């Protein structure tokens, strides 16, 4: 019906003996085709520009000096490349330490989430025991609940934790109080370990839900064969089932990395020093503070450099793994 016909289309057209359009109608169709194609490209290009332009503008502005930013805010071409903006944002702005904190917390958080989440999901999906359904639905119930419901208790509890833990262990004679004062600070405010545990707990609902449905789909025969061969339950899990669940693990892993990397409210709430020690901020939290302080210092070039530094690694990782990221993220929400 158009200039290019696939064999399949042709065959279908013949067998169905569809009414053939007249020549004029055919030309008309080709005309709308071209028009439609051009129309599509225009719209798609406009949206692409709208998406990319602000990011490119911010990235290029980070090479300008303050004077140029003020005089020519819109220009895309920096007069000279001011790499010192990045150095300033990294050291003075504190982006360097934000990165270290974020990488440590998200690395630990995602690893533990995946491990604990798939362990729980596996047991709940493939073993029948009393209370199985109850535990599963308890995990599921956490899904739609907004984090703000826990804000006050989490805040209060975290700030009280060191003292409570010291008290608890203090009752054990001889070694108790030293154990308490050792563990306490790790679970108190402004501690990366505490933030990791909080992230893990809050990521469990979705991870368990997702992996549960994944483990359900795996064939039972392989598991039975492994058990007959004398594998223990935990060996069966780590050696057979977990590797078979790899596609699911990748999807939920990407989902958790992005989710925990972008988390800002929990760090804002909990990563506050109770004494005089330095605040261990993650990127999202640190950027908020930087942009608020911006009002006083007006280091615009440093700010743009900070935005760029926060933007680039994620985009680079994405460009390398874009297929997996797109597939992983879309799979994790349609499950």
């Amino acid at each position, binding site marked *: 019906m158009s200039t290019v016909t696939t064999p399949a289309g042709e065959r279908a057209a013949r067998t169905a003996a569809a009414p053939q359009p007249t020549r004029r109608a055919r030309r008309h169709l080709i005309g709308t*085709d071209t028009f439609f194609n051009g129309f599509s490209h225009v719209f798609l290009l406009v949206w692409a520009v709208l998406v990319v332009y602000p990011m490119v503008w911010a990235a290029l502005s980070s090479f300008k000096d303050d004077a140029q930013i003020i005089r020519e805010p819109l220009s895309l071409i920096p007069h000279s490349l001011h790499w010192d903006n990045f150095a300033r944002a990294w050291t003075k702005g504190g982006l360097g330490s934000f990165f270290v904190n974020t990488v440590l917390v998200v690395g630990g958080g995602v690893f533990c989430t995946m491990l604990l989440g798939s362990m729980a999901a596996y047991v709940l999906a493939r073993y029948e025991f009393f209370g199985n359904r109850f535990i599963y639905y308890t995990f599921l119930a956490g899904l739609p609940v907004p984090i703000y419901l826990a804000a006050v208790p989490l805040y209060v509890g975290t700030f009280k934790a060191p003292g409570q833990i010291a008290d608890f262990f203090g009752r054990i004679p001889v070694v108790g109080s030293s154990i308490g004062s050792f563990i306490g600070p790790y679970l108190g405010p402004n501690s990366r370990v505490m933030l990791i545990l909080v992230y893990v707990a809050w990521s469990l609902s979705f991870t368990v839900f997702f992996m549960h449905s994944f483990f359900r789909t795996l064939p039972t025969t392989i598991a039975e064969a492994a058990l007959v061969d004398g594998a223990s339950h935990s060996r069966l899990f780590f050696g057979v089932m977990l590797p078979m669940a790899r596609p699911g693990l990748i999807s939920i892993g990407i989902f958790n990395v992005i989710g925990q990397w972008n988390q800002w409210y929990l760090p804002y709430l909990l990563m506050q020093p109770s004494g005089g020690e330095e605040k261990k901020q993650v990127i999202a939290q640190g950027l908020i503070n930087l942009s608020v302080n911006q009002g006083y210092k007006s280091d615009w070039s440093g700010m743009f450099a900070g935005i760029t530094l926060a933007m680039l690694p994620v985009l680079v990782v994405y460009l390398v793994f874009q297929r997996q*990221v797109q597939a992983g993220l879309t799979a994790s929400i349609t499950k």
Partner: protein
Amino acid sequence: MRHGRARFITGFLALPVVLYLYYVVAPFGQSVYFSFTSWRGFSDEKPFVGLDNYVRLFRDELVRKAFWHNVFFLVAVPVSTIALALFLAFLLNVGGQGNRAGIRGVRGSSVYKVIFFFPQLLSLVLVAILWQALYRGDDQGLINGLLMKLHVISRDEPLKFVSDPTPFLGVPAVLWWLLLIAIWGGTGFYMVLFSAAMQSIPRDIYEAALLDGASRVASFVRVTLPLLRDTVSVAWVYLGFIALDFYALVFVMTPSQGGPNHASEIFASQINFNAFNSGRYGYACALAVALTIFALLLAALQLRVIRRDRIEF
């Protein structure tokens, strides 16, 4: 096969369950308990006041405002994001030249997809900070600067963006400007999602439609859209929950985090303000419980709508 089964189950479940109970379930319970007290944080004394906080909540002008702003986001964000994402996905998959049998993507559709996906990777906080630079109220801002250069607006009357409380269609302007950011950030992801769903629709369905003389637009409306219903409703659920949680935008961008003059107050900003700026822990918890009930009702409603018969192919 039986040996060590119980020990294995306990061993695998213990740690996740304990963590979940300690950091998620217990705080929920505590919040519900605190919401019946007038606890103000600085002492351990938590005077029980029954439903007082809830009664007060219904009379609180700011809470009412916050509620309607939440509802605005809840309706506007999914509707506009899904509409735009569907439109772009349609252009991307059906806009191609030639071969009218089935959907044919435009040239370079994978490049478009990669680009459109970018904002999804930036955290909401980073998006907010980036847009702060775009939304500046003088000629330094990208949007004001461009519009002044094109003489669309005069130099003396720049757009005020997030510090503009004047209502437009009954909703403060600041919320519309925030909505724009949400659309910018969300559309790409849902477009990729819809696009993937469109490609999984078998070609013979389109061929049949084309043989029947359906045009592109007709086959999109009559064939593609109904078959996308599952995906669209999933997107709607997700966007609904994201829309309830636009606190990052409000927190970073608006003056006094909910302003100007409370024009961008949402539930989360009210909870945070009452708890950590005024020390009204009990009242903040009551607000959080109200928000949770709202979210649960929403989830139940969405589940009901989604759970109709699925089309398998």
